[in-house]
């Protein structure tokens, strides 16, 4: 109980502080526009009424938290999930390409890691490039992949999923190389004394030892996958998805819509990372790891 | 014979100048498995210039007692004074040097910079620092290794450097918590010998925690035997060995006699069934 209070109270305090700062910021940023509006209309509202006005503009510079909350609530719970205005619909579109890309990326990453660990030539030629590729802003490729694939007739889910794959296989590959190499020398020596084959060493020692690394890197990978899917929706002016919602919002200055799209994206991210983390804990516990 | 008298006369000196004085000192840790009585009603006086060893099985509170002297733990009840002050005041007055179980040298500092660390914190001038680093390195036989990094030295040399670090600011009290516990026996013998010479030269008061009976007997003027659950002092043995102690004194009947008493004390305070 004290442990919970130890974390809960500070976190809530800071969150409240952020909300308070947000309200003040909303007032400060929206006030100039509102003042101009009132001057032109010849109105001179009292302070309280003026504050209220800054918090209820249709296209504010910074929407107040409650405006975002109301917008988010309406577009999430009050609309049919098939409606183009429903955030659930947009989140689903983004989520589906995120998951597809994540699945591809994880499989690819594991395959590369297995190759690197077992083939010396691959280790020495590929590993430096894997590390170097982390330094390259690969998201810059996104518009080209989308447009080029569209030019040859591939559109829809796959191009976005490919960008997610591209972003998610790196963390998995790097993490799995570490994981597959994590068994200690004495354990590997033990397998040698049994005259175990490479395959047996892999299935009985390397793979089980790599599981914690796999889930840790999958958490990074799924977050990257979501970023890839969102960015993948930008260049085509896609009609659906969280990225499309952000882009449309920026065309028409609908800040409230943009913020609630961001909230939706954040919730999806949090759910995905939590889901991977929970799966990891279940698997590790089933394999006999001590609960942390 | 004269040596022997000098050694045995030390306890009488301590009555006049107490460096550490503990009365009914107790310390209880609250853990998830209930309270652990690390120290229970410890009464002890340590006089100036003494070399006191604390020996006992793990959990007997020997390290905890040292940490209480150093103000690294707070006692639950009882009184303790260090140089006539509270441990906290003594710490702020930089009254003691502490040597830990591991060398704990900072890997980003050279040996000389490591030894200069406490001097920097205590605002010694650069010239003073250089002089003290030079003289303490000489004291522990590490001259010539000033510019090396800790990880380039053997474990024994690292521990010598950490002793030099504790000596550098010239505190009269040296607290040593199993400083040679992680070293092999050959290196340990060598360092024990050096430590005795150093003690003779500097006339410091040394509190020394160990779990080795020969080490305790070889080094000390007094041996405090402790036992666990609750952590308490079960016996205090005055050493009758001369101040001058070559390594082969450990085969003398006198040495074996003291070692035997220590072993008896340990056995009395500690049942092996638990």
């Amino acid at each position, binding site marked *: 109980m004290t442990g919970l209070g130890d974390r809960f109270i500070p976190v809530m305090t800071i*969150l409240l502080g952020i909300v308070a700062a947000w309200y003040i910021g909303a007032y400060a940023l929206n006030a100039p526009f509102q003042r101009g509006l009132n001057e032109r209309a010849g109105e001179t509202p009292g302070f309280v009424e003026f504050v209220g006005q800054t918090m209820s503009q249709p296209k504010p510079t910074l929407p107040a938290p409650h405006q975002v909350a109301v917008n988010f609530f309406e577009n999430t719970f009050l609309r049919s999930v098939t409606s183009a205005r429903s955030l659930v619909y947009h989140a689903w579109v983004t989520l589906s390409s995120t998951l597809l890309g994540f699945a591809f990326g994880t499989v690819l990453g594991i395959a590369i890691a297995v190759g690197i660990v077992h083939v*010396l030539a691959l280790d020495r030629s590929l590993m430096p490039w894997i590390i170097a590729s982390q*330094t*390259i*802003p690969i998201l810059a490729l996104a518009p*080209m992949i989308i447009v080029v694939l569209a030019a040859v007739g591939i559109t829809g889910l796959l191009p976005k999923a490919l960008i997610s794959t591209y972003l998610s296989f790196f963390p998995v590959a790097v993490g799995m190389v570490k994981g597959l190499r994590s068994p200690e020398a004495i354990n590997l020596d033990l397998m040698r004394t049994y005259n175990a084959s490479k395959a047996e060493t892999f299935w009985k020692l390397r793979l089980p030892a790599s599981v914690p690394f796999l889930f840790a890197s999958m958490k990074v990978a799924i977050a990257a996958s979501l970023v890839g899917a969102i960015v993948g929706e930008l260049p085509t002016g896609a009609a659906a998805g969280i990225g499309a919602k952000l882009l449309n919002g920026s065309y028409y*200055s609908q800040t409230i819509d943009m913020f609630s799209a961001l909230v939706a994206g954040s919730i999806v991210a949090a759910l995905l990372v939590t889901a991977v983390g929970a799966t990891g804990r279940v698997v590790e516990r089933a394999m006999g790891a001590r609960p942390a | 014979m004269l040596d022997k008298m000098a050694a045995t006369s030390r306890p009488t000196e301590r009555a006049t100048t107490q460096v550490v004085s503990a009365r009914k000192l107790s310390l209880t840790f609250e853990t998830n498995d209930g309270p652990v009585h690390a120290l229970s009603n410890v009464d002890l006086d340590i006089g100036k210039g003494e070399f006191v060893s604390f020996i006992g099985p793990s959990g007997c509170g020997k390290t905890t007692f040292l*940490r209480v002297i150093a103000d690294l733990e707070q006692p639950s009840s009882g009184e303790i004074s260090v140089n006539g002050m509270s441990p906290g005041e003594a710490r702020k007055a930089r009254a003691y040097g502490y040597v830990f179980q591991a060398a704990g040298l*900072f890997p980003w500092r050279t040996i000389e910079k490591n030894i200069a660390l406490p001097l920097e*914190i205590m605002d010694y001038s650069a010239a003073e620092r250089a002089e003290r680093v030079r003289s303490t390195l000489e004291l522990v036989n590490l001259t010539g290794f000033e510019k090396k990094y800790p990880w380039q030295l053997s474990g024994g040399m690292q521990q010598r450097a950490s002793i030099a670090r504790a000596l550098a600011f010239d505190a009269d009290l040296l607290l040593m918590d199993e400083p040679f516990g992680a070293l092999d026996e050959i290196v340990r013998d060598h360092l024990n010998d050096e430590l005795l010479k150093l003690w003779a030269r500097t006339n410091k008061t040394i509190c020394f925690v160990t779990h080795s009976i020969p080490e305790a007997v070889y080094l000390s003027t007094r041996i405090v035997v402790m036992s666990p659950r609750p952590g308490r002092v079960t016996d205090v043995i005055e050493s009758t060995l001369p101040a001058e102690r070559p390594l082969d004194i450990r085969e003398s009947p006198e040495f074996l006699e003291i070692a035997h008493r220590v072993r008896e004390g340990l056995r009395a305070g500690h049942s092996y069934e638990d």
Partner: protein
Amino acid sequence: MSNVLRDWQSSAALVLALLSIVLPLTDAGSVGLKAVLVLLVITAAVAAIAVRAGLLLVVILFVGAHLAAWLLLQSLGGKTGMAGPSYYFLLAAAWLLAWRLVTVLSALKIDNRAGDLAIRLGIPLLFGIWVLILWEAIVRGAGVPFVLLPPPSAIAARIAGSVSTLAADVNQTIVKAVLIGYALGCTAGFAAAILADRFGFLRRGLLPIGNMVSALPIIGVAPIMVMWFGFDWPSKAAVVVIMTFFPMLVNTVTGLAASGHMERDLMRTYAAGYWQTLASLRLPAAMPFIFNALKINSTLALIGAIVAEFFGTPVVGMGFRISTEVGRMNIDMVWAEIAVAALAGSVFYGVIALLERVVTFWHPSIRGG
């Protein structure tokens, strides 16, 4: 026989070369060139199988593979999409010889440090060169449409031909947006971490939030920043600040907790104050973590600035160039920008990694202990 099996790459190359004798090289290729190629590959493969190891083998494989690749590219002339089956057979054979070369080099044990370093750098370099060779040879041989994937030679020509445009884009995106935003974001994250460290309440509140935020698609704030700070670089720098802040905060706080209990007790026995302990113990011990954040952030900063430009820029900048040239189907220019971005990203990362080696020389991962 055992040699043939052990060196299966050369053996396969030999078989491919023999097969390609009966198949056409290109639709209108010269017979003489093909004869030279086949002979070259056969000679290299047989020699490689015969010579078991050593420098001679390395030379044979190196010359054989690369000369064959060069001749193959020559055989196309100016035409594209004319390659016949034996073109691919010989390309595969040359690639197999290169694979064998990498395998031999990987297994090589060299005692002196310079030679070892040369091999460690040379192997990945060979890998990179062969990615480019295969890319060039297949794209040109199969006549892959230019808009789909231009050959590396066309991209290189494009880079050489548009240096001033590229320089202006780098200046706008990297020198202004990335560097300024990176410096501000990292400094702010570091300062916040020190504050959080000083006040435990702040740390317990900020750390879970910081950990959560690092998993969120923060890049989504880009359109909002563009709306607030306008089209020019300040809006991009703002995105970079937000993206780099949290990794620095979380890593620094973790790093400040990384120093050992014993070392902190030691500082306590010296009666050292908070700032003394921070400066002489906890910050040095945190340096590996801080550099980790600096490295992560170098990538995030580039991504943030480039993506933010997709939402609106003045008519200069790498992200702007990428999105507009994609629209015009000038794919070679897009690749040129990506190549420059990759180079800039690697240099940025490399500088930080180098700095890390200097500052955290003592860490086991650096000194190799």
